[in-house]
Structure formats: structure tokens, C-alpha cells
């Protein structure tokens, strides 16, 4: 661990370890997105969450997102770490760091990364409430994938 730009881990994420990976002398900006566990969703109180992943494919898809970003925003460099297992309220679930020579690309690419994570990275979240549990899916409220797989590049 440590050196790889794209990781799925079962231990707490240290934000600076992720952002350090994209530091560069050519960078004029680094944007950092920190996804945290929210307590209230549509007035329902979450007690804690559990994330599960198809780890090798998740890492592969995160790398693919990094490649897509390089295509769209040349000179942007991306690092993403996603945590799995049991997470408490306010725990960090994902950290995305993007560096680029100019800030606009870093902002845009960072948002692109989280949108793509919600489309193609095989990671699932189970919510635990006082009165039950549920595996959450389809956060983007997409219709079913007509041919059984996601669009190559949507967004």
C-alpha cells in the first residue's frame, strides 16, 4: 500500500496521505473531496453503514476513472481511496484528490470522479437504521441498464 494511486482499504483513511500522492511541481491546485457518512437521509436516521466491494475490480475501475480524467483534462493527476467495512456517522468513506496546473480542471475532474464512482465502481453500501437495514443502490436513480452494462462514458 501507500504508493498506489487507487486503493480500497478497510482501515480509516488519512486525507493527507491521499493528497500527497498527487503533489507535483507542475500543479497549481489540488482539490480534495471527502465523502463522509451522513446521519439523516430523507428523515431516516442512520446508525452506521457497512460498505462491501468486489475489491480487485473496484481498484481496476478506480484506475479507469483516473485514465478517463487524464484523457479529458491532460496533466490532471488523480488519487482515490475508498474505505469498506463498518463505518460510523462522520467517518470518511472516500477521498478523491486531483492536482492540475490550473484550478478549474482540478475542480471539474474531482466532481467527474465521484460521479463515475457512483456509476461503475463495484462498491455497495448497507444502511443500518433502528428499524431495519437495506442495501442501497441506484443513487443516481438511473433506469435499468438496457443491455446489462453501464454506458462507457456517461456524464
Amino acid at each position, binding site marked *: 500500500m501507500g504508493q498506489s494511486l487507487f486503493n480500497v482499504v478497510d482501515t480509516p483513511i488519512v486525507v493527507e496521505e491521499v493528497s500527497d500522492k498527487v503533489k507535483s511541481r507542475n500543479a497549481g491546485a489540488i482539490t480534495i473531496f471527502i465523502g463522509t457518512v451522513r446521519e439523516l437521509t430523507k428523515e431516516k436516521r442512520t446508525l452506521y453503514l457497512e460498505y462491501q466491494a*468486489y475489491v480487485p475490480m473496484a481498484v481496476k475501475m478506480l484506475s479507469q476513472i483516473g485514465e478517463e480524467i487524464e484523457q479529458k483534462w491532460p496533466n490532471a493527476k488523480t488519487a482515490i481511496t475508498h474505505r469498506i467495512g463498518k463505518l460510523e456517522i462522520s467517518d470518511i468513506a472516500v477521498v478523491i484528490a486531483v492536482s492540475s496546473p490550473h484550478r478549474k480542471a482540478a475542480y471539474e475532474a474531482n466532481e467527474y470522479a465521484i460521479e463515475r464512482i457512483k456509476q461503475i465502481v*463495484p*462498491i*455497495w*453500501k448497507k444502511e443500518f437504521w433502528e428499524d431495519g437495514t437495506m*442495501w442501497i*443502490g441506484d443513487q443516481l436513480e438511473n433506469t435499468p441498464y438496457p443491455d*446489462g452494462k*453501464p454506458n462507457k462514458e456517461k456524464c
Partner: protein
Amino acid sequence: MIKVLLFAHLREKVGVEELTLIENEGIKVKDLKSWLTKNYDLQSLNQVMTAVNEEFVTDEDIVNAGDIVAFIPPVSGG
């Protein structure tokens, strides 16, 4: 022989993380889906994506001997 990986609610419904199937080689993904729906009393695999050897495939693709098939319900990471 093919290996089928299950995640999220599918894993809970079937009760195991993976299945080893010996009689489903050379069939289309959609036929494997309907076979599993029938034999494991699953609601529907319509909204479930499929990956073969860690690459997304379509319902029309063929599953071959030695493949690792993963059913990917709508994802919710982030």
C-alpha cells in the same frame, strides 16, 4: 466450470459469497441470469450488471469455462 461471485443483497439472499457451476458453460449471460433466478429464487437480475473476469459485459455475451462471473447490483459507493 464457472465461478459466480455474489454481492450485496444477492449474497444475503443466496447465503454464500460464491457459487461454482458445472453445467452452465457456453451460455449467454442472460440465460445464466434466468437460470440463477429460477434456481435460487431471486426476484430479478434485470437491474444487475455483469462482469466477466473483472470487465463489464452485456447480456448477450457468452460465459465460458474458467470464467469468473460477478453480478453487480446498482452500485452505491462514494
